[in-house]
């Protein structure tokens, strides 16, 4: 079983549309949405949830006024400036600033602070028309998205093992921070979806530097390659220099949005179009590559 993680650095380059299109071609695969912050893959795959579980997030501390003497010891110890006094002089904790270290709870002389873990995050195992999918919904403003990514990926691996799936397709988050690090570690192949813009090139360079640290093989595609040919050539030069195979160039095409509106992948929406042929080629290149490795 091989896990392919789709990443881009910059947001909005087409990761999810490409993942969904590949999903509609993959036989015997499990799908995984690691962009737990702003998950969108389900809008196309339309999963029927068969199992759901709460993912316990970070601790959030709370001061119970009854026993609080307003001694201020908690505020002195808090490194996150999360503890404030209201107009009555009563201390309180801003839940958005609290990072859940529980130090205030431990140093409070009257044991009037308790911490509870947030229960606003969920993860799901679902059925889709292409196979099983593991995904999640994060509560607004939650911490620990990296840990939720790990949870979703571990579940997808379990399922893939149990059903002897050949592939996991893992739709990754934008950026290079903790959720991306969590979506990368231990994956077998990264597919880079690059937009030929200054921002797209700048961001992919930082992402590639991160992926090099993990020693994971990369393949790439340029999406919307015709919005600026000069920039596309610059991206190609860069990929050449970095020895990262470029497996396809996909033109800007409004079919991606039209397919999305109909809750279809672009391959389902118009199987004979040029872009659908190109997506098929990407899938062949990815699977061929794994055969070579084995």
């Amino acid at each position, binding site marked *: 079983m091989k896990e392919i993680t789709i990443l881009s*650095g*910059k947001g909005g380059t087409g990761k999810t549309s490409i993942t969904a299109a590949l999903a509609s071609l993959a036989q015997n695969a499990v799908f995984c949405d690691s962009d737990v912050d702003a998950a969108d893959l389900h*809008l196309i795959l339309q999963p029927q949830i068969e199992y759901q579980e709460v993912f316990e997030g970070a601790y959030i501390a709370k001061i119970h006024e009854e026993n609080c003497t307003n001694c201020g010891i908690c505020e002195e110890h808090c490194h996150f400036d999360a503890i404030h006094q209201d107009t009555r002089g009563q201390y309180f904790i801003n839940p958005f*600033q609290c990072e859940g270290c529980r*130090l205030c709870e431990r140093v409070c002389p009257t044991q009037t602070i308790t911490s509870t873990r947030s229960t606003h995050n969920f993860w799901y195992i679902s059925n889709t028309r292409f196979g099983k999918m593991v995904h999640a919904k994060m509560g*607004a403003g939650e911490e620990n998205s990296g840990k939720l990514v790990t949870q979703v990926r571990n579940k997808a691996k379990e399922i893939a093992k149990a059903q002897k799936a050949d592939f996991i397709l893992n739709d990754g988050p934008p950026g290079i921070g903790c959720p991306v690090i969590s979506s990368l570690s231990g994956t077998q192949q990264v597919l880079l979806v690059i937009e030929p*813009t200054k*921002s797209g090139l700048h961001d992919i360079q930082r992402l590639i530097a991160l992926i090099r640290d993990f020693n994971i093989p990369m393949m790439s595609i340029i999406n919307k390659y015709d919005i600026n040919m000069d920039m596309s050539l610059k991206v190609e030069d860069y990929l050449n220099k970095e020895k990262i195979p470029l497996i396809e160039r996909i033109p800007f095409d409004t079919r991606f949005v039209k397919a999305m509106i109909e809750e279809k992948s672009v391959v389902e929406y118009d199987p004979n179009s040029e872009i659908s042929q190109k997506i098929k080629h990407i899938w062949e290149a990815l699977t061929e590559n794994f055969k070579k490795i084995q």
Partner: protein
Amino acid sequence: MTKKIAVASGKGGTGKTTISVNLSHFFNLRFPQKTILVDCDVEEPNDHLFFPKALEESSEEIFQQVASINTDACVYCRDCVEYCEYHAITVIPPVKYAKIDPELCHSCGACFVACQHQAIDEIPNSLGHYKQQITKEGIRLAQGQLRIGSPMQTTLIKEIKKRIDSKAEIIVYDAPPGTSCPVVETIADAHFIVLVTEPTPFGLHDLKLTIELVRELKIPFSVIINKAGLGFEKMHDYLQQENIDILGEIPFSKEYASHYSQGEILSHISEDISKTYQEIIDQILIKLAI
């Protein structure tokens, strides 16, 4: 008083950077030399790409003081391990091994309180870089750039904000994508939030998530529809139903996308676009009551 405006979106690639750069440009025309653009997308900061002629004013590496165990004083009691909520500390008494992973340490100070043997020190761990520039139009541009491999984007955003000149009239925060802690850190102290969306099913879905967050934070907000005309009607239905103001709509144009791709958005402002932004600025100023 300084007014802070955050530009956020949930979904990536909707045009946060384009809108932030343009808003700063038009605010700077009203408040010359008193507008600061802060790029809070520290994982992938892009605002600077649109000001290639900006001059650097200052640059510094930013460190976080993380905990570190002094094994000469350590008695391997594991009290610190018990206190660390981030699982950053490994202590194996039989082999006298004690180490704190600097990438996992949140600098909360709990291990200092736990340790009865003064065996914990502080050492600096790089979070990334802070850079301040002045553009040729007179906009001050501040950005953070996360060290590759660091998972501490939220801490870096906090550090950047400490370095922003408080005498400015207008501060524009360009937020990272998503709805989790780095976004909260960026927008929490804003007086007004501009939500940028694109009229697609993904755009609407992620906009709803962001609105949920902004409502919880109780900060006033309005929406700019970017790439308007892509053919998804439900966006307007939703905004109308929720009574959310649309500050303006910027039509999708392949030509504009091409200028953007080369980093040229301020040198190619059409009269229509200019008028739209002027109107957006007017509305924001009314909402901020300046």
